[in-house]
C-alpha cells in the first residue's frame, strides 16, 4: 500500500459531470450543425444515431472500464494490459499534448471577443474609418466587418503560412489568462476539477436554453430551422455521409485521448460505469441536436437579415437610377419592379450590373460554415443585429468559454494523470507539477498568436489528432478483444459491476467496432493520398476573402511529423519493451514469468 492513496471523485455525480463537461464541447456547437446541413438535414440523424449505437457507446464503455479497472492513467493502464502495448497510452498522451497546445487558443479568442463585448458599439458591427476619415478601411469594405474584426484585429493574419511576424500582444494576454484559469481548475487534481465541473457542465445548458428562446423568436429563424431539418434522403446513399457520421461520433465523445481513462481511474472500484457510459453518450448526442436547433435558428435569422439588406440595397439602387419617388417600390415589390424596369428600360437597367436573381435566400442559407468561422464570424454577425447585442454577445462567449474550458479539463488531465503514475513525477507536489505542464503548453502556445498562427492552428486542428486517434482506438479495441482477451475483460467487468456485459457489448467490441474502425482508417488513408497536396484557406487582404492555398514543403513535412510522432509511439514502445525483456533474460536465464494483471 503506497503512502499516497489515489485521490477519488467526491461522488459519482462529479465523474459523470466531468465526462459530460469533457465530451460536450465546441464540436457539438459548430461541427454537428454543419454536418447536419451538408448531409441532408434531418436525414443525417439516421446514420448519426446508428453510429452512436455501433461504435460510440461501446468504445466509451470500453475506455471507462479500462480506466476504472486499472486505476492508472493511459500509459500505466495499457502497460498493465500488455507490456508491449504501453505505447498506446504514450500515443494518447502525445496526441493530447498537441490538442492542449492548440485548443486553448480558441479559449483565448473567446476571451478576446468577450472582453470586446463591453462597448457601446460592438467593434465587429461597423468598419473602422481609414486614416484620412473619408470612408471605411478598404480591407473591411471588401470583406464584412465581422470578418475584418476576426482576421485583422483579432488574428492580424498574414497572407500565408510562410509569412510571419511578432506575437500579437492581446492574443498572448488572452492565452495567458486561458492557461491560468486552466491551472486554477486543475491545480489540486481531481479535488479541484471535481468542484469545477458542477459549473462547467451545467451552465452551458442554461445559456443554450436562453439562446434557444431568443433564437426561435428571431425574425426569419424559422427559415433556418426548416432548411436544416428538411430531410434530403438521397444523401443517405452517399458514403461520405456515413463516414462523417462515424467520425463525428468518435471525436465528439473524445475517445482515444486518454481523458476518459484518466477520469475513470479516479473512480471507486465498484462504480456502475455501464449506466454512466450510456447516459453520458446520450447526453452528448442530444446536446448536439439541441445546439444545432439553436445554431440554425440563428443562421436563419442571419440569412434573412442579409437577404433583406440585399433587397433594400437593390431597392435604393433602382430608386436612384430611375429617379422614382420613395414609396413606389417597397420591399415586397422589389423583384417585380426589377422585371418591369428590365423590360421597359433594358439598356439603363443593364448599366446597373445586377444579376437576374440578385438576392437569394437559399444561397444565403447554403453558405454552410463550420469551425471557428461559424463561431466567431457568423454568430457574431447574427448577434450584432439582435436588440441589446452586448448582452447576447457576453452570454454567447461565456458559453463558448465554458464549453472550451470544460474540454480543456479533460485534455490536461489526460496528460497529467498518466505522467503522475511515474515515480519521478509523483514525488513533486500536485501544484508544482500541474503548473509546469501548463507553463510548458503556454510557452509553446505563443507560437499560435503570431500572424501565421491561425494557419498553424488549422494544421494542428486538421492533422494533429484525427488520424492518430483512429489508429489509437483501433489498437485499443483489438488489444482488449483479442490480445487481452474478451473473456478476461468480461471477468474484470463482472468483478467491478457484479454482472457480465451482455451479448450486445461483446459483439460490438469483438466484431462491429473493429470492422468500422478499419473501414474508417482505410478511408482516411485513401482520401489523404487521393487528395493530393494538402491545402488550407489563406486570407487574402486585397480580395477580402479566403483563398485555397497549398501547404509549402516544410508545412507538409510538419504534418507528417505530427502524424508519425504519435503513431510511432506504439511500435517504438513495443520494441523497447521487447529489448528490455531480452536484457533481463540474459543475466538470469530463468523462465519468463507471467505477469498477473487482474486480481
Amino acid at each position, binding site marked *: 500500500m503506497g503512502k499516497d492513496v489515489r485521490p477519488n471523485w467526491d461522488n459519482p455525480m462529479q465523474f459523470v459531470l466531468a465526462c459530460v463537461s469533457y465530451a460536450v464541447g465546441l464540436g457539438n456547437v459548430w461541427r454537428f450543425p454543419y454536418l447536419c446541413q451538408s448531409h441532408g438535414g434531418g436525414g443525417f440523424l439516421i446514420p448519426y444515431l446508428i453510429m452512436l449505437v455501433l461504435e460510440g457507446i461501446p468504445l466509451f464503455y470500453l475506455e471507462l472500464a479500462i480506466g476504472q479497472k486499472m486505476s492508472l492513467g493511459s500509459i500505466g493502464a495499457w502497460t498493465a494490459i500488455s507490456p508491449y502495448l504501453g505505447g498506446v497510452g504514450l500515443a494518447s498522451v502525445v496526441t493530447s499534448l498537441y490538442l492542449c497546445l492548440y485548443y486553448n487558443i480558441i479559449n483565448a479568442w473567446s*476571451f478576446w471577443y468577450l472582453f470586446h463585448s463591453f462597448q457601446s458599439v460592438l467593434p465587429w458591427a461597423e468598419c473602422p474609418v481609414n486614416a484620412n476619415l473619408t470612408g471605411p478601411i478598404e480591407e473591411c469594405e471588401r470583406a464584412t466587418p465581422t470578418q475584418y474584426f476576426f482576421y485583422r484585429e483579432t488574428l492580424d493574419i498574414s497572407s500565408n503560412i510562410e509569412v510571419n511576424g511578432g506575437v500579437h500582444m492581446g492574443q498572448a*494576454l488572452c492565452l495567458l489568462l486561458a492557461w491560468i484559469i486552466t491551472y*486554477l481548475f486543475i491545480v489540486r487534481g481531481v479535488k*479541484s476539477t471535481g468542484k469545477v465541473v458542477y459549473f462547467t457542465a451545467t451552465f452551458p445548458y442554461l445559456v443554450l436554453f436562453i439562446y434557444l428562446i431568443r433564437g426561435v423568436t428571431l425574425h426569419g429563424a424559422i427559415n433556418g430551422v426548416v432548411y436544416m431539418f428538411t430531410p434530403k434522403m438521397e444523401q443517405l446513399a452517399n458514403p461520405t455521409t456515413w463516414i462523417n457520421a462515424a467520425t463525428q461520433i468518435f471525436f465528439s465523445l473524445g475517445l482515444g485521448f486518454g481523458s476518459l481513462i484518466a477520469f475513470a481511474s479516479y473512480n*471507486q*472500484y465498484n462504480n456502475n460505469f455501464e449506466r454512466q457510459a450510456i447516459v453520458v453518450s446520450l447526453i452528448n448526442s442530444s446536446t448536439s441536436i439541441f445546439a444545432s436547433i439553436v445554431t440554425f435558428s440563428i443562421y436563419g435569422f442571419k440569412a434573412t437579415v442579409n437577404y433583406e439588406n440585399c433587397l433594400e440595397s437593390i431597392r435604393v439602387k433602382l430608386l436612384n437610377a430611375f429617379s422614382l*419617388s*420613395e414609396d413606389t417600390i417597397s420591399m415586397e415589390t422589389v423583384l417585380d419592379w426589377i422585371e418591369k424596369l428590365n423590360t421597359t428600360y433594358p439598356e439603363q437597367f443593364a448599366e446597373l450590373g445586377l444579376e437576374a436573381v440578385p438576392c437569394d435566400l437559399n444561397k444565403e442559407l447554403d453558405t454552410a460554415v463550420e469551425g471557428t468561422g461559424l463561431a466567431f464570424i457568423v454568430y457574431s454577425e447574427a448577434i450584432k443585429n439582435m436588440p441589446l447585442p452586448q448582452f447576447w454577445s457576453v452570454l454567447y462567449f461565456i458559453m463558448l468559454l465554458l464549453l472550451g474550458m470544460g474540454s480543456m479539463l479533460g485534455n490536461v488531465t489526460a496528460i497529467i494523470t498518466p505522467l503522475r503514475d511515474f515515480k519521478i513525477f509523483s514525488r513533486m507536489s500536485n*501544484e508544482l507539477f500541474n503548473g509546469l505542464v501548463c507553463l510548458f503548453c503556454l510557452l509553446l502556445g505563443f507560437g499560435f498568436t503570431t500572424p501565421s498562427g491561425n494557419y498553424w492552428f488549422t494544421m494542428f486542428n486538421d492533422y494533429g489528432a484525427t488520424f492518430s486517434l483512429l489508429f489509437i482506438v483501433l489498437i485499443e479495441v483489438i488489444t482488449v478483444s483479442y490480445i487481452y482477451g474478451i473473456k478476461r475483460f468480461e471477468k474484470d467487468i463482472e468483478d467491478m459491476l457484479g454482472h457480465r456485459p451482455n451479448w450486445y457489448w461483446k459483439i460490438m467490441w469483438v466484431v462491429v467496432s473493429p470492422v468500422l474502425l478499419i473501414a474508417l482508417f482505410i478511408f482516411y488513408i485513401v482520401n489523404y493520398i487521393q487528395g493530393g497536396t494538402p491545402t488550407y484557406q489563406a486570407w487574402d487582404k486585397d480580395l477580402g476573402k479566403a483563398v485555397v492555398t497549398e501547404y509549402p514543403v516544410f508545412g507538409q513535412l510538419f504534418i507528417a511529423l505530427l502524424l508519425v510522432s504519435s503513431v510511432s509511439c506504439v511500435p517504438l514502445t513495443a520494441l523497447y519493451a521487447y529489448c528490455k525483456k531480452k536484457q533481463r533474460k540474459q543475466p538470469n536465464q530463468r523462465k519468463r514469468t507471467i505477469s498477473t494483471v487482474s486480481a
Partner: protein
Amino acid sequence: MWDDNEMFLFRSTVAYAMRRQLPGQQFSVPNIVVCNETARVSFWFVVMSPDMGSLIPKQQVEKAVRMSRGRINSAFMLTDHTLEFIGIAPTLASPYTPDTPPWLIVFGVVMGVVVAGIIFLVGSSVVQKKRKKKQKSTDNNAEVNEEHSAVNEGVYNMSFTDEERITRI
C-alpha cells in the same frame, strides 16, 4: 414628405453654408438656384453671387458644404448616408479612442480575480502541508499514534462490507 417648404429650408441652409465659407458676402435664398427636381427627391443646384451676377465656382460650393455638412444634415434630421451630395465625400467623425482600450480593463479585472484565486489555493495547500508536517513531528512523540497508525495501515477488506456493491449514479 418633401414639399416646397422643405426645399425652402434646403436653400436657406445652403445659403447659410455659403455665408460661413465666404464671410462678408450676404447670400440668401434667391441666390440658390434649383432645377431638374425629380420624384426621387434629387435635384441640381447652383449658387449665384449675392448680386446675382456670377456663378460661384464648384470648388467653393463643395468646400462650403463640407464645412457645414453637419448643420445641413441636422436641419433635416438626416445623416451622411441618407442625404447625399454627389461628388462630395463625407468627412466621417474621427473615432473615439479612449486612453485605455476597454477590453484591457475587463481583462485586468478577470486576471486579478483569477490570480487571487490561485494564490489563495496554492497558499492554503502550502500552509496545510506545513501544518501537517508540524503535527506529525509532535505526534511522533506520542504513544497514541502507534494505535492509530496500526489501524490506518490495514487494507480494507471488501468481502466484509455491508455496503451496496454497485454505486448508483
